[in-house]
């Protein structure tokens, strides 16, 4: 692939584990653990995986909001892996991020026009009337009314706020946009509006996207190719349809079989592969293939030897899978059972350190006063 806009080689990002208030232990969170792939000009690469697998960390490494622990990132022919903060400024013009939270990422006290105009101000590319003109142009591009230039973010709905985020990202006409869960916080009926907007803009402005989401049907819809991550590593990467039609990695199979299908008849026909256990802690990832404690096909070799990301069977070079025992077309995984010898069987504490879902509560769940349940106050933004 010579027309790569972005190319990652063995990118690693570890975080020290925070224990207690000030103490730092020697333990490391293996957030991104050796990721390599390329993104070609004009394509959308989807990045999927479950909570805590390292998608956002990888996004922040690519945009160099984080220092890399090791590895190399080439962007538009240039090695950006070791650039210093000051040297990063030109990069910011060419690479932008759109974030998940359309509420949290906009300063509530500032007017929308000045928020979208920030990039011009920071990079000194336009000021005064010229800036206003370009901001209004950007607003129009993303379907906002340019007359709302002086409004505050709170006067916009969630979907409109996400459009503001898109307008700001587009202001300087970047080459690459990294979208980190751009539609996850939006209502079903609004999600589709933003997805269409992103795809129209891609056609008009020749953009390249890295599109992160945990919703597999959304990713399938927007992506040319999809990379699936598990515990800091890419376990399978392939053209989108190829991955969804011929998933090779047991985890890809399980994940796809668990996606709720909004079609009762199709849902009833589908075989579920239910995984056991939770995602292990990224502080002490399992040995060998890090999926082995949950894998229905695991064997002794998986415990000791890490599989490389390679084309399997007669898949073409674009479809690579990191698994010693990939899943063949038509193979039924729902009955598969791991065959790990006694010497390799370790009792894995399945307390996943990292992923914290949101709390769910029982109305009378306060053990201090089980007799006096407090009504749950709904807090809304």
């Amino acid at each position, binding site marked *: 692939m010579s027309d790569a806009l972005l190319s990652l080689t063995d990118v690693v990002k570890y975080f020290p584990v925070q224990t207690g208030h000030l103490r730092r232990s020697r333990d490391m969170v293996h957030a991104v653990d050796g990721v390599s792939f390329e993104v070609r000009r004009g394509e959308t690469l989807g990045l999927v995986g479950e909570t805590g697998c390292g998608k956002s960390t990888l996004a922040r490494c690519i945009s160099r909001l984080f220092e890399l622990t090791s590895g190399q990132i080439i962007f538009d022919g240039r090695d950006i892996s070791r650039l210093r903060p000051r040297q990063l400024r030109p990069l910011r013009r060419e690479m932008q991020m759109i974030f998940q939270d359309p509420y949290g990422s906009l300063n509530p006290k500032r007017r929308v026009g000045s928020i979208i105009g920030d990039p011009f101000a920071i990079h000194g590319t336009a000021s005064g009337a010229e800036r206003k003109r370009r901001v209004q142009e950007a607003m129009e591009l993303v379907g906002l009314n340019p007359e709302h230039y002086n409004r505050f973010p709170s006067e916009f709905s969630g979907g409109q706020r996400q459009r503001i985020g898109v307008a700001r990202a587009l202001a300087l006409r970047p080459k690459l946009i990294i979208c980190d869960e751009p539609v996850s916080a939006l209502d079903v*009926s609004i999600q589709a509006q933003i997805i269409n907007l992103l795809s129209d803009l891609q056609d008009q402005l020749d953009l390249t996207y890295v599109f992160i989401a*945990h919703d597999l049907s959304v990713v399938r*819809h927007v992506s040319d190719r999809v990379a699936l991550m598990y515990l800091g590593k890419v376990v399978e990467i392939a053209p989108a349809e190829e991955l969804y039609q011929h998933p090779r990695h047991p985890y890809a199979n399980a994940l796809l079989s668990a*996606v709720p*299908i909004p079609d009762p008849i199709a849902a009833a026909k589908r075989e579920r592969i239910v995984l056991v256990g939770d995602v292990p802690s990224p502080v002490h990832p399992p040995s060998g293939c890090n999926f082995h404690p949950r894998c229905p096909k695991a064997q002794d070799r998986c415990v000791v030897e890490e599989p490389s990301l390679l084309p399997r069977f007669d898949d073409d070079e674009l479809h690579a899978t990191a698994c010693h025992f990939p899943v063949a077309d038509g193979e039924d995984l729902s009955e598969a059972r791991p065959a790990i010898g006694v010497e390799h069987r370790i009792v894995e504490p399945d*307390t996943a350190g*990292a*992923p914290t879902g949101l709390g769910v509560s029982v*109305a009378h*769940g306060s053990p201090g006063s089980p007799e006096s349940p407090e009504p749950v106050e709904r807090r809304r933004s």
Partner: protein
Amino acid sequence: MALLEVKDLYVSFSTMDGVVQAVRGVSFSVDRGQTLGIVGESGSGKSVATQTVTGLTRGAKISGQALFEGKDLLTMTQKELRSVRGAKIGMIFQDPLSSLHPYYRIGWQIVEMIHAHEPGTPKAKARARAVDLLRLVGIPQPERRIDDYPHQFSGGMRQRAMIAMAMSLNPVLLIADEPTTALDVTVQAQVLRVIERLQTEFGTAVILITHDLGVIAEVADDVVVMYAGAAMESGARDEIFYEYHHPYTEGLLRSLPAYGEERERLRPIPGQPPSLIRLPSGCPFHPRCPYVFDRCRSETPPLDPTWGGPGHRSACWLPHTKAEREAVRDRVIGEAVPS
């Protein structure tokens, strides 16, 4: 008689900006062993409706009826309600602010729950029941994990622990408000399976609130589709998915990326959901509806029967016969897809 029958429920809040009409005349019912799915977008009144029924809404103006085993929950005293909640109605909330108590061991919290409602249960017996419950919801090595603190559990495990707690007194009704929304799909599949199993084993009725039509497709028997505080359509699950009448239901289904089909342009519902303080006149969906005609702007359509089964109703002025409804769709949506 239905286990729970909610009739013409209205809930409104006075706020600085004006009166928020959160729930406007909603009716639904659920039978033993059945799952009722409530869908609709953010702010459509799903949580307020169910929390009001169980007496957990404060500072609101409420009217209507909520008959549970024949008795009206809305007129019960707090004391009566308290004994119903937990013992007969288990609740799982999506609320990060009031999750499991962080300072107490998981097992202790469940045991305490059992004691609160069944004083006199021997300690060992309550603890054994807690272990069983944790096993039932798929917590591995429950004998050991029962003494963990909540932070030692992963998000998915905590969610399951909370289901265990909600189920600890064998409630006849489980109200689950977005129980899986923040979970990964593999864990979500596990949790939904747990709820289903409890249901077949104990005949528990379930009200499942979600905005995920995929989850509804998998587990609901009946469905209520809410928009702007009111039910737009209700019916058996397959009626909602394959024989929908209401344009909002249609819009929701059409805006999803088609699963397993060629990549094509999505067909979103245009516009934004309305403010609940200043509702549109007539049909609340009219500003976004591709079928809108004059009458929709001035008169609010009632939730009337359609051609489907007895429970299939839709609040829309379009013709209520199948052939006519389909003819309108072909005419309006058929060639030009609004976007």
